[in-house]
Every structure is written in C-alpha cells, then in structure tokens.
C-alpha cells in the first residue's frame, strides 16, 4: 500500500479504530471554536468589515503612519535584544546551578531569587527600576552617574530581560542537567582541556535549550505591553503598547486590533522556526535502560569567574529592586516620612480581601482546567497522528501569541450576547486564562514527552493494554512531573497577568493585579507595594507547595533525572 492511501484509510478508520481519540479531538476542536476562533473571527469582522464590506482601508491607514512602522521595528528590535540578553543570563545562572561546586543553600538562593521577577506583576519591577535608575535615581546617585536616560529602549530592555531571563534559566537548566556526563569524562580522559571540552561538548549539546529559550523570550517580549507602557516613553514605541493606546486613548478598536494582528506575523515565524529546530530532532533520554551516572566535569576557571561576577551582580540588583518595594510597603509616606508602619497592610486586608479571594479562586479554577486541557492537547499533538495536526497545535497557541489587551477586547465582543453570555462572570476570566496560559502547560507536556521513549508505551500496548489504559497507567505517571511543572506556571501567570484582564474584570470579579495598577495610578505607592508583597507571598507559598508535590511525584517513580522536569516553556 502506498503511503498516501495508507494514511487516508487510517483517517477514515479513526472513528472505528480509536474512538477515544476521535471524541477527544471533537471536544477539543469544539472548545477551540468557542474560545479561540469565535472571538478572533468577531474581532476580524469588526476590524476589516466597514458597512458590511470587506475593507483593508484600516490596514493601509495604520501602516501609512510612520510612527506605527517605527513601533513594528521597535517590537522586533526589543524582542531580539531581550532574547539575546535573557538567554545569556539564563545560561550563566544555569551553569552556576548545574556545573559549579557552590554549596546547596546558595544554589537554592539563586533559584529563589531568579523566580522573584517572574512571580511579581511586570509593572512593579518597572516602577522600582525607575526609582533606582531613573532621573535622580537612588542607585545613580550612589554611584555618581548623571544624565542616564532610562526611558526608552534602555529601560524597557533591562526590565524585560530581568523579568523573562528566569524562563531561559529554567529551560537551560533542564537541558544541562539531563546531559550525560559520560561525554565529559570521555573528552577529559582523551586529553582535552576543560576549556576545549566546554566549547566542543557542553555548548553544542545545549543548543536545544538555547534555541528554545531564545524563541520563548522572543514571544514573551513581543506580547508584553505593561513594561513599555511604563518605561518606553515616547521615543521608543512598540506594537502592543501602541495598540493599547489606540484602543483606550483614541477609542479606535479597529486600529488597535489591526496593529495587533500585525504581531501574528512574527509569532507565526517564531512558531515555525521552533518546529523546524526542535520538532524533528530526538532528545530521548528516558528509555528505561539508563546506566550509572558520574558527575559533570568542572568548568574552565575564567568561565567560573565570569559566572560568579554576573550572577552576583544580577542577584544583587534583583534583591535591591524588591527591597525597594518591601521598604515602600512598610513606611508611612514614601521618601518623606520613613517611620515604620503596618497601615498599608491593614488597608490591603481591609479593602483588598475580595480581590485576594477572587484572584485565588479564578487562578485555581484556571490552573486545574488549564492543565487538564494541556495534558490532552500536548499528548495528542505529540503522540498521535491525525489530520490537521500542525494546525491543531498552532491553533491552541493563538491566544497566547496575541497581545492580552486584544484578546480581552475580542472576548467582550464575542461573549456579550446570547447564546454565550459570559461578560461580567467569573467564567470569562477563567476561559481567557485557560486558553491563554495553558500554552505553558502544553509546551511542558510536549517537552517531557519528547524525552520519553515511545517504546515504553508500545510495550504496554503490545502486552494487551488499551490506549486509554496505557495513557493512564504508563504515560500519565511518566509525565506527572511535567504536568505539575506546567501547573506551576499556569498558576503563576494567572496570579500575575494584567493585560487581558483590564477589559474583563467586572463589578463582581476584581483581581489583585488590577488593584495594584489602580493604586499606582491613584498615587498610592505604599499601598501598591503592600499589595505586591502580599501577591508575591501568596504565589511563593503556592509555588513551594507545587514544587513539593513535584518532588514527591518524582521520587515516587524513582526518576533518575529529577531536575529535567523543571522544563518550562512560557
């Protein structure tokens, strides 16, 4: 039978052969139709239909303005710069944790500090950055630097790099720790210097991690609107921010969505590059027949010195920035009356209780539903063959690639009328979060499946277990660490997201992040800081709990490479 006809018969037989896969696919496609395509199509209609006729006048109008073209370049330049710097920092930190002889508590401190920027709302670190490095900033004064203009490319770049390099750190750590040390041993015993070994073995073997993190950071920076909003100033426009300004400042929803759809182009390119680079190679390392492992070889000396300097500097900067926030939350009036007070925390618990419980409720719902969907989608698109698979995978990521504000607007337009009336409810927030942030869960599940040899599942099947039993008894236990890791990031995103929710919070459902932004615009710096600290503590606690479960699940199945399941994809 030719390959083509074989495929075709497989397809027609799917209902009979694998009814479970068929019904799962139908259910997932249905959810895509409602929560991804419907809002997108409605927004497209609003954008490109003028008086019932298809019109691209908006597009040419928008592209005709030089400022918007500058914004497009700005977005691309910023995303590239952030990916380079973030990946570099991530690699340094990953080497520090996996390849140096630092004492364990110190390594723990490194990991704990790097997660701080990830779990705090983006604008809080931006604000403390302006207090430190802005005009008359405290750090600038301390070092006697004058005339450093932080507003524009420089500030946005520093802030986004600090915010997103933890993602690079986690991706690369996972890759570095799953590498086999036998190659190191072989190189050294054949007489290579540690420098040569690092250049010819460690670096090439970490390409998948470097590539993955580069692309993830590129996407994250491309869609970020909060950081440039605070730090970009007028000299450095970027697309998501300009889209937001058009919608809220000029009341031009059409123009704003047109700008956002432009972002889909680089997003699609990024996705295709990712597929081309990562999709085809084999990274199988869990085969059920692992041998004994030895320790990794030491790094060359100069590199250790560089790593120490870079990590110390970055950790000090992060701690300093968050110390400003902590301090701000504990003094009466910022920089005028520095006497200690707990008033702001009293305010937070008196007036912010509803926001705290609402945020937690929504985050928990979204995390559970999001990770369920992520497991199903990740498994199906990695392990099963079916018609439209690539389109399926790309569709699942669409809401993630668009700027949040646009997803928010699209959701109101789509879900404000019967039969699907969701505006003002919790469901609309949960749906927005699930279909936006489950992306991290999906990537995590896919990455984990790429490391697991399908032979394990084939063994189960050939021993007579059905596809469902194999999934629940072999696959699930093997990928539970990845699922938990995915859950961790869905939860973190749900607790700290701001962009989409600005348009979705309602009189019945408010969120912590919008309260923080609100306090900022109301000039209540201390209250905003107190809100931020409370949020950080909650996320830290929840994160610790999930890490604990992660440890538990990895030890239960006695996995040889526990750290590999910290793989994260944002």
């Amino acid at each position, binding site marked *: 039978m030719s390959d083509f006809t074989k495929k075709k018969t497989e397809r027609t037989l799917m209902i009979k052969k694998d009814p479970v896969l068929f019904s799962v696919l139908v259910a997932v496609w249905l959810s895509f139709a409602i929560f991804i395509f419907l809002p997108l199509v409605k927004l497209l209609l609003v954008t490109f239909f003028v008086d019932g006729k298809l019109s691209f006048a908006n597009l040419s109008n928008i592209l005709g303005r030089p400022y918007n073209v500058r914004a497009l370049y700005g977005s691309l330049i910023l995303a590239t710069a952030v990916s380079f710097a973030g990946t570099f920092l991530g690699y340094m930190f990953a080497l520090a944790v996996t390849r140096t002889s630092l004492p364990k508590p110190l390594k723990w401190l490194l990991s704990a500090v790097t997660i701080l920027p990830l779990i705090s709302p983006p604008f809080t670190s931006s604000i403390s950055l302006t207090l430190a490095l802005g*005009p008359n900033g405290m750090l600038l004064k301390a070092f006697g630097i004058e005339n450093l203009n932080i507003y524009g490319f420089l500030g946005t770049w520093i802030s986004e790099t600090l915010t997103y390099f933890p993602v690079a750190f986690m991706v690369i750590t996972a890759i570095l720790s799953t590498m086999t040390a036998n190659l190191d041993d072989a190189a050294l015993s054949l007489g290579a210097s540690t420098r040569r070994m690092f250049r010819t073995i460690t670096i090439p073997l970490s390409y998948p991690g470097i590539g993955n993190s580069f692309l993830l950071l590129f996407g994250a920076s491309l869609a970020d609107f909060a950081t440039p909003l605070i730090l970009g100033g007028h000299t450095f426009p970027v697309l998501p921010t300009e889209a937001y300004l058009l919608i809220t400042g000029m009341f031009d929803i059409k123009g704003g969505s047109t700008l956002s759809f432009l972002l889909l182009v680089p997003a699609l390119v990024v996705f295709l590059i990712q597929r081309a680079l990562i999709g085809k190679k084999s990274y199988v390392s869990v085969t059920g027949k692992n041998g004994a492992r030895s320790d990794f070889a030491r790094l060359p000396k100069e590199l250790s010195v560089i790593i120490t300097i870079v990590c110390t500097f970055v950790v000090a900067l992060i701690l300093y920035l968050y110390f400003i926030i902590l301090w701000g939350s504990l003094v009466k009036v910022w920089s005028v009356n520095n006497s200690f007070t707990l008033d702001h925390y009293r305010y937070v618990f008196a007036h912010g209780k509803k926001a705290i419980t609402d945020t937690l409720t929504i985050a928990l719902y979204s995390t559970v539903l999001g990770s369920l969907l992520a497991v199903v989608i990740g498994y199906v698109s990695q392990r099963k063959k079916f018609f439209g698979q690539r389109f399926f995978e790309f569709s699942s990521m669409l809401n993630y690639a668009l700027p949040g504000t646009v997803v928010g607007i699209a959701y109101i337009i789509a879900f*404000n009328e019967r039969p699907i009336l969701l505006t003002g409810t919790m*469901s609309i927030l949960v749906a927005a979060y699930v279909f936006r942030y489950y992306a991290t869960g999906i990537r995590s599940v896919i990455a984990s499946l790429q490391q697991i040899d399908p032979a394990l599942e084939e063994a189960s099947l050939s021993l007579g277990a059905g596809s469902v039993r194999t999934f629940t008894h072999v696959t699930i236990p093997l990928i539970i660490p990845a699922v938990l890791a995915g859950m961790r990031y869905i939860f973190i995103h749900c607790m700290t997201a701001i962009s989409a929710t600005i348009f979705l919070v309602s009189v019945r459902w408010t969120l912590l992040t919008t309260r923080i932004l609100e306090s900022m615009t109301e000039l209540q710096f201390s209250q905003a800081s107190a809100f931020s600290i409370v949020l950080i503590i909650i996320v830290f606690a929840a994160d610790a709990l999930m890490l604990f479960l992660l440890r538990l699940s990895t030890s239960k199945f006695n996995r040889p490479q526990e750290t590999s399941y910290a793989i994260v994809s944002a």
Partner: protein
Amino acid sequence: MKKLRIAGLMLLCLLVVSQLFAAGAQEAVATEEVPKGPISVYSIMPEKYATKIFAAFTADTGIKVNFVRLSSGEALARLIAEKNNPQVDALWGGPADTYEAGIKEGIFEVYVPKQADKVPANFRSKDGYWTGIGIIPLTFLSNAKFLKEKGLNPPTSWNDLLNPAYKGTLQMADARTSGTATERIYSLVKIFGEDGAFAYQKQLHQNIQLYTKGGAGGAMPIATGQAASGVFYIVDALDIQQQGYDLVISYPVEGVTYGVEASGIIKGTKNLAAAKVLMDWASSSRLGEVMVAEMINYIPTRPDVKVTNPALDMSKVKLIEADTAWKGEKRAAYVQRFIDDVIQQ
C-alpha cells in the same frame, strides 16, 4: 470497565463545563429581575473617592452601588464593546469630552435630573446625556526643593516652563491616553491659537523628561524629586500635596481651562429607576457637601455649595471657558497633531 472510566471522565468534563455556563446564566438573570438596586457602575473617578461618595449615596437612598474603577479610555472602550448588552447602569466621573465621544457611539441614555436647573448650563449636556458633578482646573505642580536649588520662582506663566533650567525635568501626560493632556492642549489653543499652541509644545518638548500615560502619573515623580514640574488637574496636585510632600501649586497668569467631571446613565440599563435616583442625587447639593466634608478636591458644580479649602478658591485664578462640545469635536485632530508635530519631531 474501560468504557465506564471514559464515560466517567467525559461526564466530569461535561459537569465542569456546564457548571461554568450555568454560573454565567444565573448571574445574568439575577441582575435582570431586581427592580431597584444594587446598581453597577464603571467609575473613572479614583476608587478612594468613589468609595466614600457611594457610601454616602447608599446611606441617603438605600441603593447599593457596585463599581469597578477604569481609566476613561478603558471605560469607553468597554462600554462600546458591550453596547448590545450593557453590563453597567451608569458611568461615574471622568471628563465630559469622554461622554461626548460616547454619545456618538450611542451608549448614553437621555435623562435630565430633577435639580439639573440648579447646575449651570455649561456644566451639563445640552441634550441631557450627562450631568457635571465637579470642576477641576489645570494647575502647575512643582518640587519645592528643585526650585530652591535652581533659584527659581514657582512658574506663573506658561512661558516660564520653557526656561532651559527645566531641561529634561518636566513630566506631564501624553495626549493619546490622558484627558489631562488634552485639557492642556485646549488651554494652549485658547491662549496661543492653534498653530501657536503646537509651536509652544514643540519648544516645550526640549524640557520634557517623560510623557506619562495617566494624567496623575507625573505627580509622584515630581513629589520624590525625579522630575521638577508639570501640568496637572488640581484634584491630583492637591492629593499628592496633602500626602505630605514638599510641593508648590501655582497658576499661569494667561489662565487655564478646566475639566468638567460628568456622570450619565447607560442606554439599555436594566435598573433605569435606580440609576435615575443616582443622577438626581448627584445634581443635588448633597454631593457637593459630601465632597467638601471628605476632602475630595473637586469644585462642586452647584454654586450654592460652600467650598472650605482655600486651594480650591478660584477667585484669583483666571479660568478660560471652553465648550465641551468644541472639545469633543477637536480632540481627535489635536491628538493626531500632537503625535505628528510634537512627539515625532
């Protein structure tokens, strides 16, 4: 056994999904059937003020107000997107020209409150779409320490801000996002004429450190010494000064225009009767009295309310009249010119 498990799993999924939809439906039905209050409001007025004002309203009328605070642009974008099925009954606070823009989109209900005739005609909509609840003139806000170090007097003319001593130290709002910024442009146009206003801003651009997104965004940096001076609505300037920062508030001799904070009913509201009660209350002298008592720094629209804060005494300030309909008409063109002439130079 296997089938049972699949069925169970699917049932679970179904349950979760139906729960979500059911929750949505129930919440929607609940608001439809309650005849009088609670009402839902988008408040452009800052949360800390709106909380106090609505508490007084509830005490007076027994109608509870649920609200969420949004910036004027976010509020309008949402009201337009939700037009076919409004989620709130009224819009509270925010500049009147936002309301004028909303009228064109057909989102407001006509209602002339009972005591509207006691509110001067230029503080309410000609056609009854909105009613003014407070007046806020523009003002200069400067860092006292900066002025002392540079040996400067507080600015008392628009031209004072062009002084090179201020180079790279001014923060004020961006016209694309902020009503405070468009108000600044209206003032300048009334004083220098249209071309003069933009020539002035081009020159002023040399001294600008940052155009902030929100109207009050520059106030905190000026308070902490990051920036030296800027142009704000009086309500934001007084608010930060009252927190204890060493700041100087001054007015230009050429004069300033003022913003009218408005309120209006959303077309298609399910609580029309209760929303009307809010508008009646807002146009009574009660609202002004509450503002004065709670130190909320708007000048009440009712001339019969006595203002006690000397900073809100406008007898020595030159106030320039600017028609709200004119503002609404010119806004888009001025913002575009601000982008083309000032920001991109």
